[in-house]
C-alpha cells in the first residue's frame, strides 16, 4: 500500500465528511452508521450499529486484535444527557497472518451500541460518530470517518427498514452468550489449563474449541491450543501470553466452540471468567491432535481386545486351528485373517464416518442402541457357544478350523473368521472403547480411519505373529483330545456374552418381545442341533431344521422391529407432532416448536439463554402460544422429514406457527432472548 493510495483514501473520507453522510466509502471498506428504528422515543433506549462491508481479503479487528492490529473506536457526539454503551462485539474469527494470528472480522460485521436517551427530549436530534478503524490485508491502513445520523422523535413515525432490522437481529445472534458455566484455570509451565463446565459437551459434536482473552497479555494468540472433552465439559491447553495472569487474577475472554450440525458448522462464543484453581489430571477427555500417539494407543487397545471374554474363545480356536497347518500354510492364514480383521474395521469406520458426515449423532456403541442388532449378536453368540459345546459342527468351517491348509475354500473361511472376530468383539468393545473411538470419530476422516485400522492391526497382531513364527505354536501340546475340551470350556464365555446381550435387550423391549426373542433362541438351538443330526441324512430333514431356525429368529426379529417402530413417536406431553401442531392451530393457538437434541450444544445454549427464560415464558403465556419440543436425540423419521421440509438436515430448528392456519416463521439457529420476544410480539 503506497502512501499515495492512503492519501486518496483520506481524500475520500474528507469528501464524505463534508456531506455529513451516514456512510463512508474507502477503497477497502464501506462503513455505515445505522439506527435500528428510524426515530427515537424520549427516555427509551435506542440501538445504533456501525456496519463494515469489506472487500474480500480485508479485515477489521475485535476488541483484542491479537498479535497485531487495532480495534475500531467510536467517539460519540451525542445530544445532551444521552449515553452510549460500549461496543457489543460479535464473536471474532481467527485470521492467520503468516505464523501470527489476529482476531477480527472479514466480509461484513455490525458493531452495536446502545444509546440511552433522556425524557426531556423532543424534536429531531443529530448523532455524530467519529470512528477510527484499521483495515488490513497483508498491509494495514488506518482510516477514519465522521458519520452523522438525523433522528426524528417518535412523533414522526416511519416504519423500520426491514433490512436494517434483520441486520441488527443477525448481529445480536453473533454476540457471545453468558452461560454461567463454572470455569477454572491453572497455569502449568507456560500453559493455561482451562476447564469449562458445559454439560452437553460430552457428546461428539464439537469440531473445534479455542479461547481468546478479552485483552492483550494472558494468552498468546498464535499459540497452538489443544482441546479435549471431559465428563462435564471442555478442557483447553492454551499457551500463555507475555503477561500471564498472576495471583488470583481471573482469566477473562471468549470460548469459541464450533459444533457440527447437519448444515455445516455452527460457531458460538461463550463469555468466560475463569478463576484460578487446581485441576485434577485430565482422565476422561482424550486430547486433541497427536496422531502418532493416537495410532499407537489404538494399536495397544487392539492388542487388549484379544483378552475380551467374547473374543478370546474365537481366537483361541483359531490359534489351535493354526497348529494343524504349522508347516507353512500358517503364514498365509495369518495374513488372510489380518486382512479379514482390517476389512471389518475399515467397513465399520467407513460406515460411521459416512453416518457422521450425514449429521447423525452417533458414536461407537451406537450399534447397541438398536435392539435388532443386539438380538442378532445374541443369536450369534448363542450359535458360537453351541458350536463350541459340540452341539453342531457346521460353524467350525466358518472359523477356519476344518479343511486343508491352502485350499481356497479354507482361506475364505479364515478371512470370514477375521470378520467374525471383529463382529463378535463389537459388543465387548463398546463399553470399554466407546470414549476413545468416539474421540476418533470427531477427528478428520483420514485420522478416524487410521485409528480404526491401527486398532484392527493391534487386534490381529497376536495371531499374525503366531502364524508368521509357527515355531512358537510348538509350545502348545500336540493336537489331541485337549482341544475338544478347550472348545467346550470356551463355550461358556459365549453363553455369558449371550446372557449379557439378552439383559441389554430386556432394557430396550417389552416383555412380550423378550419372550419372542427367547423362543427364537430355543428354536435356533433346536434347529442347529437338528441340522447336525441330519447332516448325513436326508435333505428334507435339513430343510425342516433351517425352516425352524428361520421361523424362530423371524418371529423374534419381527416382534422387535414392530415394537421398535411403535416406540418412535413416543407421545409425551408437549412433544412435537405435525398433528399436534395442526390441532393446536385449529384451537386458535399459535405454536412454537423447538427441534432439539441432547447432544446439540447450540440447542442447549439457545434454550438456556433465549427460550427457558422468565421473559420468554411470560410472553408465551401472555400470547397463549403452545410450546412443543421435537426431540431428535434418537433418530426420528418424522422429525427428519420436518427438518428437510424447512431445508435443514440437522437441529436446531425453531418454528413459530401462527394461529389457525399458515406457514411457520423460521427463526435463526442462534437465538437471542430479544429475537424470540420480537418474533412472539409479531405473531
Amino acid at each position, binding site marked *: *500500500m503506497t502512501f499515495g493510495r492512503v492519501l486518496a483514501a483520506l481524500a475520500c473520507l474528507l469528501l464524505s465528511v463534508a456531506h455529513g453522510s451516514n456512510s463512508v466509502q474507502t477503497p477497502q471498506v464501506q462503513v455505515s452508521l445505522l439506527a435500528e428504528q428510524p426515530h427515537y422515543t424520549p427516555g427509551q433506549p435506542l440501538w445504533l450499529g456501525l456496519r463494515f462491508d469489506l472487500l474480500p481479503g480485508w479485515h477489521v479487528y475485535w476488541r483484542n486484535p491479537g498479535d*497485531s492490529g487495532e480495534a475500531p473506536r467510536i467517539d460519540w457526539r451525542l445530544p445532551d444527557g444521552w449515553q452510549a454503551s460500549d461496543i457489543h462485539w460479535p464473536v471474532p474469527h481467527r485470521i492467520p*497472518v503468516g505464523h*501470527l494470528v489476529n482476531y477480527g472480522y472479514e466480509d461484513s460485521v455490525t458493531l452495536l451500541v446502545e444509546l440511552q436517551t433522556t425524557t426531556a427530549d423532543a424534536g429531531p436530534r443529530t448523532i455524530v460518530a467519529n470512528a477510527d478503524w484499521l483495515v488490513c490485508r497483508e498491509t494495514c491502513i488506518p482510516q477514519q470517518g465522521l458519520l452523522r445520523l438525523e433522528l426524528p422523535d417518535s412523533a414522526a413515525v416511519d416504519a423500520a427498514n426491514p433490512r436494517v432490522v434483520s441486520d441488527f437481529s443477525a448481529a445480536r445472534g453473533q454476540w457471545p452468550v453468558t452461560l454461567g458455566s463454572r470455569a477454572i484455570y491453572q497455569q502449568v509451565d507456560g500453559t493455561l489449563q482451562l476447564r469449562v463446565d458445559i454439560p452437553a459437551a460430552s457428546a461428539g459434536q464439537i469440531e473445534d474449541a479455542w479461547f481468546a482473552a478479552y485483552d492483550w497479555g494472558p494468552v498468546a494468540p498464535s499459540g497452538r491450543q489443544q482441546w479435549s472433552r471431559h465428563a462435564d465439559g471442555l478442557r483447553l491447553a492454551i499457551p500463555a501470553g507475555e503477561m500471564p495472569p498472576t495471583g488470583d487474577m481471573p482469566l477473562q475472554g471468549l470460548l469459541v466452540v464450533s459444533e457440527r450440525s447437519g448444515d455445516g458448522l455452527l460457531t458460538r462464543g461463550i463469555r468466560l471468567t475463569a478463576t484460578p484453581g487446581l485441576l485434577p489430571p*485430565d482422565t476422561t477427555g482424550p486430547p486433541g491432535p497427536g496422531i502418532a500417539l493416537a495410532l499407537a494407543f489404538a494399536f495397544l*487397545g487392539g492388542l487388549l481386545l484379544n483378552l475380551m471374554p467374547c473374543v478370546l474363545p474365537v481366537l483361541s480356536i483359531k490359534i489351535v486351528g493354526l497348529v494343524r497347518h504349522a508347516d507353512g500354510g500358517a503364514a498365509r492364514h495369518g495374513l488372510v485373517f489380518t486382512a479379514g480383521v482390517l476389512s471389518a474395521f475399515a467397513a465399520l469406520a467407513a460406515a460411521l464416518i459416512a453416518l457422521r458426515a450425514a449429521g447423525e449423532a452417533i458414536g461407537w456403541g451406537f450399534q447397541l442402541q438398536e435392539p435388532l442388532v443386539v438380538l442378532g449378536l445374541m443369536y450369534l453368540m448363542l450359535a458360537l457357544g453351541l458350536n463350541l459345546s459340540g452341539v453342531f459342527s457346521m460353524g467350525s468351517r466358518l472359523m477356519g478350523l476344518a479343511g486343508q491348509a491352502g485350499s481356497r475354500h479354507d482361506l475364505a473361511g479364515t478371512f470370514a473368521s477375521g470378520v467374525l472376530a471383529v463382529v463378535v468383539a463389537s459388543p465387548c468393545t463398546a463399553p470399554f472403547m466407546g470414549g476413545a473411538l468416539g474421540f476418533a470419530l470427531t477427528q478428520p476422516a483420514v485420522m478416524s480411519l487410521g485409528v480404526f485400522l491401527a486398532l484392527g492391526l493391534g487386534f490381529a497382531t497376536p495371531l499374525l505373529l503366531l502364524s508368521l513364527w509357527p515355531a512358537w505354536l510348538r509350545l502348545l501340546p500336540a493336537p489331541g483330545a485337549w482341544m475338544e475340551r478347550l472348545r467346550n470350556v470356551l463355550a461358556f464365555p459365549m453363553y455369558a456374552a449371550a446372557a449379557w446381550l439378552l439383559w441389554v435387550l430386556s432394557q430396550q423391549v417389552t416383555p412380550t418381545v423378550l419372550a419372542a426373542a427367547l423362543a427364537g433362541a430355543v428354536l435356533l438351538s433346536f434347529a442347529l442341533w437338528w441340522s447336525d443330526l441330519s447332516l448325513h441324512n436326508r435333505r428334507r430333514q435339513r430343510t425342516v431344521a433351517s425352516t425352524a431356525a428361520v421361523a424362530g429368529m423371524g418371529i423374534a426379529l419381527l416382534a422387535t422391529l414392530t415394537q421398535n417402530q411403535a416406540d418412535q413417536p413416543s407421545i409425551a406431553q408437549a412433544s412435537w407432532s405435525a398433528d399436534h401442531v395442526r390441532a393446536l392451530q385449529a384451537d386458535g393457538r399459535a405454536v412454537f416448536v423447538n427441534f432439539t437434541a441432547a447432544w446439540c450444544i447450540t440447542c442447549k445454549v439457545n434454550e438456556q439463554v433465549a427460550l427457558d427464560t422468565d421473559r420468554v415464558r411470560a410472553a408465551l403465556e401472555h400470547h397463549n402460544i403452545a410450546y412443543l419440543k421435537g426431540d431428535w436425540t434418537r433418530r426420528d423419521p418424522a422429525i427428519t422429514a420436518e427438518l428437510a421440509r424447512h431445508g435443514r438436515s440437522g437441529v436446531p430448528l425453531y418454528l413459530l406457527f401462527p394461529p389457525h392456519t399458515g406457514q411457520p416463521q423460521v427463526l435463526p439457529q442462534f437465538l437471542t432472548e430479544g429475537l424470540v420476544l420480537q418474533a412472539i410480539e409479531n405473531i
Partner: protein
Amino acid sequence: MGIRIREQVVAMALGIVLSTATLAAVNVGQPAPGFSGIDTRGQRIALEDYRGQVVVLEWTNHDCPYVRKHYDSGNMQAHQREAAGNGVVWLSVISSAPGKQGHVTAAEADELTAQRGAAPTAVILDPAGHIGRLYGARTTPHMYIIDRDGALAYMGGIDSIVSTDPADIAQATAYTRIALNEVVAGKTVQRAVTRPYGCSVKY
C-alpha cells in the same frame, strides 16, 4: 481394562502438554538469545559483540502507519539519539520478506535512515525473518532492551497509546524510554513487559 485405557489417555495428555511447553519465546530476565545478521554496510553484526553494553532492538517497516507515526513525528529518532548519548547500542531490524511491505535493499535502508534523520547504531536486514522469529517479534514497532549482562530487560510497545495518530505521543506513557533509562541506570525495570502494537511483521 477401562482403567488401563484411561492411563493411556493420561499419558497421551501429558505428552502433549510437554510438547507445547517447549514453544516458549524469549522471557524477560532470561539471557537474550544470541544472533548474528548482516547490516546495511554488509557487515556481520552479532549480539555477543555488544556484551557489556545495553542493546535496543527495534523491529521496523517504513511503510507501516504505526512506524510512520513515530518517525514522521521524530519520536523514534529522539529515542535513538538519547540512546546514543547514553552509550546504548540501537539495532533497527527489518524482517519483511522480499516482496512484502517494508522490504528494502541495503541502499534503500540507508537512504531511509538519512532521509528521516534516524540514528540507529546499525540497521540489520533479516529478510528470512530468523531474528524476528527468534525473538517472537510480532509488530512494527516492537521493542526489546537487553541489559549489560546480556539478559532481556524489556519487551513490548514503544509507548502506551495504541493508535496511528502522532498527536497521541505526547499523552502516552513512553514505556521504552522509561525502561531504557532504568536499564542504563542499573535499576530494575518496573514495567518490563507491555503490549506491542502496530502492523504485523511481514514475514
